[in-house]
């Protein structure tokens, strides 16, 4: 030890060491923080500037609110916002309706082999490109595809029902792609729920349904909300699947961005991108506020 032997001398040395320990986090945080600040916040700034000062467009750039005025003043664009939100709401709803029972069922599986099989079935599609999966759905759902063939062979329909190039097709493909993102948060919350709480409810006179409604559901609600937020934000910002499954017939915000980027209408593309971001933030904040008041207690560990 180089520290002086006097007790007084030990103090500054210790303080230095303590300060060194505290500043040690800086080099650890720097790369991630730097990348995040550059990629996200700087780009966001560029986007905002571009929406009112299209410096990359042809001609002499000048500050103008023209793009904002065009978007906010046109009922068509409000319609696109509505379509986007409706689509996200439907996909989120279907994902929760399918995902909650699935998560619950996986949780109750006792045999490790079967649980693993369920995980593989549910999560393996994530490894396949979204484009590939969407083309797969196009083939399955097209008027000459497998689904319509089965329906017609069974005599359930006479004419093939239109399942692609409309909202139905987008919802089917989006639910398939986003279902794992709904199951996982719910599964992790159900996993924390002790089985003895359910037993206690039944012991106190609750039937299975009452136990679910009064104990299991309220205690797993934080997971449901997290799942809904993830699926909702991923849906409103999804591009490839709605673009391919919609076939240009269904217009949503991400499609608008693509259209205006192609047309080098960067000011308008920036406006749509910022509107999309604003919607996502608004939905997240609103759902958090809604949940916080009602279910604060549920987040307290058992």
């Amino acid at each position: 030890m180089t520290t002086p032997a006097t007790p007084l001398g030990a103090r500054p040395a210790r303080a230095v060491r303590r300060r060194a320990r505290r500043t040690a986090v800086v080099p650890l945080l720097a790369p991630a923080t730097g990348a995040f600040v550059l990629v996200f916040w700087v780009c966001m700034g560029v986007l905002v500037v571009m929406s009112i000062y299209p410096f990359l467009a042809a001609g002499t750039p000048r500050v103008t609110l023209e793009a904002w005025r065009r978007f906010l003043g046109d009922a068509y664009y409000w319609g696109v916002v509505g379509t986007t939100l409706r689509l996200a709401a439907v996909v989120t709803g279907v994902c929760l309706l399918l995902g909650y029972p699935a998560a619950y069922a996986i949780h109750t599986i006792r045999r490790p082999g079967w649980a693993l099989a369920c995980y593989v079935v549910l999560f393996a599609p994530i490894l396949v490109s979204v484009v590939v999966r969407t083309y797969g759905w196009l083939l399955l759902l097209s008027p000459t595809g497998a689904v319509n063939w089965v329906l017609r062979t069974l005599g359930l329909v006479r004419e093939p029902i239109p399942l692609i190039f409309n909202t139905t097709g987008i919802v089917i493909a989006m639910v398939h792609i986003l279902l794992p993102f709904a199951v996982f948060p719910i599964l992790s919350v159900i996993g924390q729920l002790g089985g003895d709480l359910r037993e206690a409810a039944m012991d106190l006179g609750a039937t299975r349904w009452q136990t679910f409604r009064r104990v299991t559901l309220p205690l797993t609600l934080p997971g449901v909300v997290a799942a809904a937020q993830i699926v909702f934000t991923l849906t409103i910002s999804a591009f490839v699947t709605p673009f391919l499954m919609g076939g240009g017939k269904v217009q949503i915000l991400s499609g608008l961005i693509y259209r205006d980027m192609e047309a080098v209408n960067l000011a308008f593309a920036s406006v749509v991108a910022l509107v999309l971001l604003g919607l996502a933030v608004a939905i997240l904040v609103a759902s958090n506020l809604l949940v916080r008041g009602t279910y604060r207690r549920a987040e307290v560990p058992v």
Partner: protein
Amino acid sequence: MLAADAVDTVVTGVAGEPPDVDLRQVSKTFGAVRAVDRVSLAIARGEFFSLLGPSGCGKTTTLRIIGGLEEPDEGEVWLRGQDVTDVPPYRRATNMVFQQLALFPHLNVFENIAFGLRLRRMAPHLVARKVREVLELVDLPDYGDREIHQLSGGQKQRVAIARALVNEPAVLLLDEPLGALDLKLRLQMQAELKALQHRVGTTFVYVTHDQGEALTMSDRIAVMHRGRIEQVGTSQEIYARPRTRFVAAFIGEANFLEGRVRGTDGETAVVEAGPLQFVATPARPVAAGQPVTVSLRPEHVKLGPAAPARNRWDGRIVDCTFMGPVVRVRVQVPGDRVLLAEVHNDAAAELHPGTVVAVGWAPAHAVVLGE
């Protein structure tokens, strides 16, 4: 068999009234393990009844079978004269206090306790009154608005008991409810629980692995071992008259002497264990020539002048261990046996390793086990 004998055990309580809990030859198997093996039990109204045994002896499974949380493979469960074997837990007149308490974290104290009442669609003003009453009963008045995570361990314990008791069950089932508490709080809660049971008069079935807890709290105890009931009786009966070697070893401590019955007059038996020949008391009828095990509590092994005239030998002290109020003395008796004796520390001044003392025990304290 011993399990079958339990049926014959005298049931205290009002004559002619069916027992509150009546298990008839109940068995339950998990995989290859027979957790509960032909258990029969009758528990009278108002009894504080303990199921006592080491972990894995089937006591918790037996309790869960009474509550309906576990279905027996064989046998019947009767509550107050009704066969409830196929009745689900939510329609049984039993309530359970769980080992992990299982209080609902998303509800406050009031709503936790009101849970069962609300399910029965009780009028709100009655719910409020009953919750208030039971909170006073468990000494937690004005705690209704607290959140569960704001409570201490002992308070959570009381809320769990209140949540079960407020439903006025025929039988309250308690699964090691004090296991998570520290020793001091545990002793305090033992006394409170016993007093509470006395006040409300509800039948308590209490599962514990702690023999001290069972001895101090229970009216009667069933000692379980490997899914079977070894003995049912009051604390004094089980301690003073253990029927099997397991019971004698599990409840307190015991010296065991293996020997053979020389003769018997019904009340007492003369047992020969090597060079020792002594008078003992059989827990069940024995015949001359039968090989037996005799159980002898350390505090009943008397040394020096305290040793009785009969059953008396010279022994050599091996070592002494000071334990505070008592001194534990290991003493070698004829036949190269070492017995453990426990004497009060004021009587232990003369005892030193190597000295020879008189060793003896009263015939009533040497219990011939039924194996």
